[in-house]
C-alpha cells in the first residue's frame, strides 16, 4: 500500500494565536488517506482548535496547512472547495432543531451538491441506515436522545461523501450509557476504511482503530506514535501521566 504517497492532510509548522494567547505552537501533522489519527490531551491543549483548522473553521497565522492538496486560507473559494472533502462531527451535535432528521441530512445534498429531493433522500436514508437510525427520519432532533442525535450528525456529515471525517470530542457531551452506540458507529466507519481525525479521550476506541495517536499539551504536539507504541511502554512522560489519569476513571 502506498499510504504515505496519498496524504490528505499535511500540516507543517502551524501557529495560531487568539489575541495574545498562543494556542497552536509549531504543529506538524500528516494524515494519510485510509488512516485513523486520534488526538488526545488535557482541555485547553489546543486539540479542538487544531481539528477546526483542518476544515478551515478556524484560521491560522503561520505555517502551512494543505487539505486534499489545497493550501487553506489563501483563497476563500479554494478553501470552500477543499472543505467539501471533509465531514465534521461536533461535541454538541449542532443538528438544526427546526428541520427533521431527514432534512438535516438532505440540506447540503440539495443546496451544495445540487441533488434532486428524491436523490438526496435516497442517499440520506442509506446513511441513516448505516448509523442504525432510519426509523427516526421524520423526527425532530429535540425528540431524540443525545446518542441518537450524534449518530444523525455522523450520517449528516457522511452524506456529502467526504474523503475525511473530523470528530471533535463526539462523545464528551453524552451520558455514559449512550457513548457506546456512537463509538460502535465510528468503529464501523473505521473498519470500512474511512480516513478519520478524532479528538477524543476514549482510549479503548483509540486502541481499537487508531493507526496513530497524537498527544497535545499547551498547544504543542508532545507525542506522536503508533497506537501500539503509545499504549506500550514507550512515549513521552507527560502522555504517560495523562494516560494513567484518564484510565483510572
Amino acid at each position, binding site marked *: 500500500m502506498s499510504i504515505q504517497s496519498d496524504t490528505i492532510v499535511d500540516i507543517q509548522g502551524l501557529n495560531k494565536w487568539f489575541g495574545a494567547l498562543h494556542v497552536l505552537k509549531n504543529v506538524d501533522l500528516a494524515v494519510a488517506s485510509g488512516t485513523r489519527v486520534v488526538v488526545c490531551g488535557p482541555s485547553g491543549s489546543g486539540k479542538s482548535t487544531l481539528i477546526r483548522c483542518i476544515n478551515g473553521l478556524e484560521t491560522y497565522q503561520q505555517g502551512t496547512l494543505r487539505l486534499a492538496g489545497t493550501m487553506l486560507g489563501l483563497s476563500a473559494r479554494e478553501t470552500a472547495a477543499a472543505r467539501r472533502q471533509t465531514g465534521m462531527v461536533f461535541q454538541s451535535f449542532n443538528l*438544526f432543531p427546526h428541520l427533521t432528521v431527514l432534512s438535516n441530512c438532505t440540506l447540503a445534498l440539495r443546496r451544495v451538491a445540487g441533488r434532486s429531493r428524491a436523490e438526496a433522500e435516497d442517499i440520506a436514508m442509506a446513511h441513516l441506515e448505516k448509523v442504525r437510525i432510519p426509523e427516526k427520519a421524520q423526527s425532530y432532533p*429535540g*425528540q431524540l436522545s443525545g446518542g441518537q442525535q450524534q449518530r444523525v450528525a455522523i450520517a449528516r456529515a457522511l452524506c456529502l461523501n467526504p474523503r475525511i471525517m473530523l470528530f471533535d470530542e463526539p462523545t464528551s457531551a453524552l451520558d455514559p450509557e449512550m457513548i457506546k452506540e456512537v463509538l460502535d458507529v465510528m468503529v464501523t466507519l473505521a473498519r470500512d476504511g474511512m480516513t478519520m481525525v478524532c479528538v477524543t479521550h476514549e482510549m479503548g476506541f483509540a486502541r481499537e482503530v487508531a493507526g496513530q495517536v497524537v498527544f497535545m499539551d499547551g498547544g504543542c504536539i508532545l507525542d506522536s506514535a503508533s497506537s501500539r507504541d503509545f499504549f506500550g511502554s514507550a512515549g513521552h512522560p507527560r502522555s504517560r501521566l495523562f494516560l494513567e489519569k484518564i484510565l483510572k476513571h
Partner: protein
Amino acid sequence: MGFDLAFALSSVPTILGAVGTTLFVALVSCIGAAATGFLFEMVRRVGGIAGLLIGFVIDFIRSTPVLAWLYFLYFVLPFYGIRLGSMTVGVMGLSLYYSGYLAEVFKAGIDAIPRGQSEAARALSLSRRDAVIHVIAPQMLRNIAAPLGNYFVSILKATPYLAVLAVPEMLGQAFDIASETYRYTEPLVVAGIIFLVLALAISHGVKRLEQRLLAVGAR
C-alpha cells in the same frame, strides 16, 4: 346627570365601526416597526460608527414617550414642507417608537441561536446565503414569533394615542361623539369596554399561537 345607558348603546355602532381602523393601524404599524427594527439591528450587528449610532438611536427612542414622538412628527414634518395625512403620521410614529423595541427582539432572537448552528452550516459547505435562509432565519423567526405577537398587542394598545392627531380610530370616534353631544362618559366607557374585549381576545389568540408554536417546535 347620571350614566345614560340608551345613549351609551346608541354610540356602540359608531365606535364598533372604528375597530377596523384600529386593527389596520396596529397591523401596518407593527409591520413598519418590525421592518425598521430589523434594519436597525442589522446595522447594529455590522458595528462600526453606524452601529454605535444606531445603538444610541435605539436607546434614545426607548427613553422617550410615544406621545412626544407623535407630536414631534405631526408638527415638525410640515415645518419642512412634508404634508402627510394624520393617519400616515400616526403609523410612522408608532412604527418608529416600537422599532426600538423590536430591534431588541431581533437581537435576542438571533443571539439565542447557538454559535454551533452557523459552524455546522459552514462545515457542511453551505454558502453564507443558504446558511442564513435555511439555518439562521427559520430559527430566528421561531424565536421572535412570541415576543412579536406580544408587541403587536402593545402596539394595538397604543393606537388610541392617534386620537390626539384626530385619527378616526376607536377613541377618536368616541371623542367625536362626545364633542357633538357634550356627553363624554358614555362614549368613552363604551370605547373602553370594546377596546378591552378586543385586546383580551387578540392577546388570547397570540398566546394560543405561541403554545402551538412551542408544541410543534419540540427541541
